[in-house]
C-alpha cells in the first residue's frame, strides 16, 4: 500500500504542523490559539525527532511549556485588564445616563 508509506513520523508531523498553523491563524480566541500552538510545537518536536537530534528535541521539549506558560500569563493578564476597562466604561456610561 503506497498510502501506508506516508504514515511515518516526518509526514505525520508535517500534517500536524500545518493543521496547527492554520488553527492558530483561523481560530479567533487567544486561548484556542494557545492550544493550537501546542499542536504546532508537538509537530516541530516530531520533526526534530525524525532528524534524530535527541538533544535538540530535549531542549524543544523544555522550552515548549515555557512559551506556553508565558503566553498564558500574558493572556490572562490582558484579559483582566480589558474586562476591568469595560467595567469602568460601563460604570461611567451609567453615571452619565
Amino acid at each position, binding site marked *: 500500500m503506497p498510502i501506508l508509506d506516508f504514515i511515518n513520523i516526518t509526514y505525520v508531523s508535517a500534517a500536524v504542523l500545518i493543521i496547527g498553523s492554520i488553527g492558530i491563524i483561523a481560530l479567533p480566541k487567544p486561548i484556542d490559539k494557545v492550544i493550537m500552538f501546542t499542536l504546532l510545537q508537538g509537530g516541530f518536536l516530531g520533526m526534530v525527532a525524525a532528524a534524530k537530534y535527541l538533544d535538540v528535541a530535549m531542549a524543544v521539549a*523544555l*522550552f515548549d*511549556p*515555557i512559551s506556553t506558560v*508565558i503566553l498564558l*500569563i*500574558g493572556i*490572562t*493578564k490582558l484579559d483582566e485588564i480589558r474586562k476591568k476597562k469595560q467595567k469602568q466604561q460601563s460604570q461611567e456610561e451609567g453615571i452619565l445616563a
Partner: protein
Amino acid sequence: MSASVLVPNVVSPVVVSLYLPAIFTGLFAGLIGLLAITYQKNDLHTLILTDIVGVAMLIIVAAVGTDLAESLILPGLVVELAEILAISEILMSREMRKLGKTVELVPLPLNLDMEILDTAPTFIAILLIAYGAFLSGFTGGAIAGGGILFYVLSKMTRGVPFNIWEGVAGVSGIAWCLWLIGFILFFIAPDYWLLALFLAAFGIFIKVTFKVGLIGVLGREEFKKDKE
C-alpha cells in the same frame, strides 16, 4: 570515517538546489512584512511586524548552508533580540511620558492558580541551567537564561532592589572582559588556546545568562506586581 564525509570540497548539491527556494522564501517573507509596515499606523504593531522582517533575514543567511553561515546566524539573532528589547522599552517610556502618571489603574489581585506555576518552575529551571552550563557559549547562555527567566517570572515575589540590579550588570560586564581576555590570548599566546577557549566560552555563557535573567526580572514587574 572518510575525509569527504567530514569536510567535502564543495558544498553539497542538496544545499545548492535548495538555495533558490530558500532565498525566494526569505525575500517573500521580507516583502510581506515590509508591505505590512508600510500600511501600519500603530507603532506597537510595527514593532511586532519587524519580527517577520528579522525572520526573513535569518532565512537568507541560513540558505548559504555552510558552517560559516551558521556562525553568522548567531549575531543576526542576537542583534534582533537586543534591538527589540531596547526599542520596546523606549516605546513604553514614550507612552508613559505622553500620558503622564495619572492613568495608573486600581490594582486588582491577579488570580493565577495554575498548577504548573507551583510545581514545574524549579525543576525546569534546574534542568535548563544545567544543560545550558554544559553547552556553554551563546547557545548555553540563551538556554540557561531562559530557565532563569522562567523561574524568576513564576516563583519569586515582587520587588527588585536597585543594588542587586547593578550587581548583576557588573557581573556580566566582568564576564565580557573575560571573553575579551580569551580572545586576545588566542592571538598573543596561541599555546594557551585551551585556556582561551574556556575563558571565551564561559565568559559569553555567563554574560548571556545574566542578561536574559534580567529580562525575567523586568517581566516579573509586569505580571506579578499585583500579588504583593
